């Protein structure tokens, strides 16, 4: 145990002394997470709208008055449909509305009328949601069947605020990548600097050295995670924390162990940091791909769905988001705890054995 402590604190000290590394870790876990949350906006915002009004009536103006900031920029008038199309082609306008000359008249006489919308759908995400916004706005002008209403509630996040969500996703990506690289680097650095042999010759059980080295990095990652979650995600973005912090902590701990296992494996096959970086990316890409971070797992091909059962990231993402956003109770988290613990332990033992062979 004393040896464990010695190695553990030595690694922490070495980490703190490597200013570059500390800077990278701090940057990734704070500023990077912040920038991602602040800078990337997926909801329609500032959508540029153009319109042509051939009808010269009041209704179009009424509709246009509903297109207001922050979702829409002030609609810009065009004199002809051709001009409007050209503006869309030039990517100056994302959505174009064309009110035909009989737009209002038809509604009054026939009870229905047509609104022509031109959408630049190269930006599919925005187009999608803009269209749906417009449908909603227009719907308000139609006296609905008296009394009926569809009330939708977005649970846990009524405004579908994406800032904290994206910063949280970024936090998970950063945790994953840094976690693997740190725990691989702590071994590969010894190879690079030639201290590997010295390490082997210590009259100490190699298992203790490996464990102490791996856990020192897990410790660093956990500290960085608490800083990132506690300060950036929760404080700056004011994310409500709906579940128990202990659950989040435990899940992160289990996940960090999994990452350390992958890191140990990478360390056992790499000669230098450059290789660590390359192999990490090759291993992490499919893991992230299969995690449900991008495509919901239930939307995947059935085969991929099966494969995703193997991705530890899947359980961590679902689990931690359940804790943070959904406020899920511990009992219901067992479905993440158990597989994460199994995969984590398996990977850690595998990595441990792999690197142990070099001792």
């Amino acid at each position, binding site marked *: 145990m*004393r*040896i464990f402590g*010695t*190695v553990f604190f*030595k690694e922490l*000290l*070495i980490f703190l*002394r*490597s200013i570059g590394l500390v800077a990278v870790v701090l940057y990734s876990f704070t500023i990077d997470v912040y920038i991602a949350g602040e800078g990337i906006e997926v909801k329609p915002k500032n959508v540029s709208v153009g319109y042509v009004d051939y009808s010269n009536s009041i209704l179009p103006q009424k509709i246009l008055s509903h297109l207001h900031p922050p979702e829409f920029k002030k609609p810009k008038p065009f004199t002809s449909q051709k001009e409007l199309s050209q503006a869309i082609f030039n990517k100056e306008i994302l959505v174009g509305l064309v009110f035909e000359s009989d737009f209002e008249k038809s509604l009054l006489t026939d009870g229905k009328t047509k609104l022509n919308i031109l959408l630049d759908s190269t930006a599919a995400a925005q187009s999608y949601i803009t269209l749906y916004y417009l449908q909603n706005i227009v719907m308000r002008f139609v006296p609905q069947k008296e009394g009926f209403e569809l009330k939708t509630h977005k649970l846990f996040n009524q405004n579908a605020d994406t800032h904290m969500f994206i910063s949280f996703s970024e936090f998970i990506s950063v945790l994953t990548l840094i976690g693997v690289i740190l725990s691989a680097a702590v071994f590969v650095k010894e190879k690079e*600097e*030639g*201290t590997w*042999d*010295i390490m*082997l*010759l*210590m*009259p*100490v*059980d190699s298992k203790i050295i490996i464990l102490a080295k791996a856990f020192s990095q897990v410790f660093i990652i956990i500290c960085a995670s608490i800083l990132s979650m506690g300060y950036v995600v929760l404080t700056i973005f004011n994310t409500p924390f709906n579940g128990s912090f202990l659950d989040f902590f435990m899940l992160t701990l289990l996940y960090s162990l999994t990452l350390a296992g992958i890191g140990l494996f990478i360390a056992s096959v790499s000669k230098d940091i450059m290789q660590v970086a390359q192999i990490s990316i090759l291993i992490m890409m499919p893991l992230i791909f299969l995690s449900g971070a991008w495509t919901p797992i239930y939307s995947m091909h059935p085969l991929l769905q099966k494969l995703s059962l193997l991705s530890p990231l899947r359980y961590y993402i679902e689990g931690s988001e359940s804790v943070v956003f959904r406020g899920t109770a511990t009992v219901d988290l067992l479905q993440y705890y158990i597989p994460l613990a199994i995969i984590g332990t398996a990977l850690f033992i595998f990595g441990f054995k792999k690197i142990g062979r070099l001792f």
Partner: protein
Amino acid sequence: MDLIVNRVSVYYGDKVGIKDACVEAKKEEIIGFIGADGAGKSSLMFAIAGVKRFKGEIIYENYAYHSPKEAEKIKDKLGFMPQGIGLVLYPDLTVDEHLDFFSDIRELKRDEEYWRYRQRLLKMAGLAEFTDRLAKNLSGGMKQKLSLICTLIHRPKLLLLDEPTTGVDPISRQELWEILDENRKKEKSISLVSTAYMSEASKMDRLYLFDDQEIIASGTEKELIDMARDYTYEETECEEGCITFNKRTYSLRPLNAKKAEPTLESLFFVNALKKNKIPPPIQIEPREQKIEIPPIVMEARGLTKRFGDFVADDHIDMVLRRREIVGLLGANGAGKTTFIKMLLGLYPIDEGELYLLGKKISSPEDRQELKSKIGYMSQLFALYKDLTIYENLVYFAKMHGLGMEKALHRIEKLSKGLGFDKYINEFPKDVPLGIKQRFSLAAAILHEPVVLFLDEPTSGVDTVARAQFWKLLHQLKEKWDISILITTHYMSEAEYCDRVVVLKRGRKIADDTPQNLLKRFPNAKSFEEVFLELYKESE
């Protein structure tokens, strides 16, 4: 004069590389730059080669240049080989492809004359049979020789070689010098060669001695040796202001002793005295823990290591006795490092038996208990660069299971005894190589081992520091009854060993005391020549 270097200074930010250096050279001359690591030799080479900004003026064949840009004009006449083994080679190109590449970037015409010259270079370098081998698969010596012939392929008129022989075994070194000598005669070129081997000084026409970012002396070897003559005495007891090493005592004050014949190394001791940089006396205290040491500490019987088809060590027998310093010598790739790594258990043993402290080693468990009896210091002075010297030592002590109190006590004693106590809170990168070397040794002996394995512990370290180091090893032997197995490239150091074992291509070709070996080859002037004779004899 065909090359005049006039008050050249090189700076790296605030740090001085070399200050106000003046050098002159004529055609056909070989000029030697001699000095410790970091004394400024490389910086001056960079300036002359026009690869680094400098202050001052360099005139080559009446063309003066003051910056790398102006130096462009002389670069077609220039051949520059920077310091570092295989530094200018591409690991994934073969020997032939290197020569092609270096010829092409110099736009050499491929006439008959060219091919003849190329073939001769290859032969001289002993690479003619290995033209298809990738550079990464060459041994260190072969890499150096390949670098050299790549530098020579365009027949440069101004040749700058920065430590071309460091880390190269005597055989390869001799070939290197033959190539150089032929080139200067044939091409009438100027060669500037820096070296850490004093024995090579005799091959130079004139020498420049570097110390502390300055040139401290210049002249022929004889002139330089004469400078030390007044201060060199036969070994004698001396209280203060003197250094004793290798049967000689150096002192600025007249001593009541017989004068002795100085060597080039003597000048460095004298210079240290003049600059009042007398190394502190080394004081090793007796072991804290008394232990019984068996008369035979290590015995290897038919140790063999194979890498695929290649036999790195072929049935080597060897014995290491109590209180014995054994030097393990051999050319690059002779199997020295592999042998030590087998003894340490860093490589598994393919065949043969190994006994450590009377115990047969057959499993990793057997080793585990013995690890605390063994000390090891690697070629690279491997230390944690992000820990201070003190922290490094504490770490090593704790790993060896020493209690904090005991650890601190020993660290204090060793740092004082080995004379690096004032550097103890510095980071390894900030201390001179000699200090690094001593503190690496301290890390290796903190746990008071009975046997010490040292893999090229003296490479690149200056003369005075090296002398200190050997004194240290002898004291350890005397006071601790320790046994030491050491590999080295400095053949002169063989004489400080009790016994030497010589390896060649994985086989043992000699195992005797240096005195006996010198007797066996009465014509050999130095141990270096003994070594060459031994290799020739076993052809």
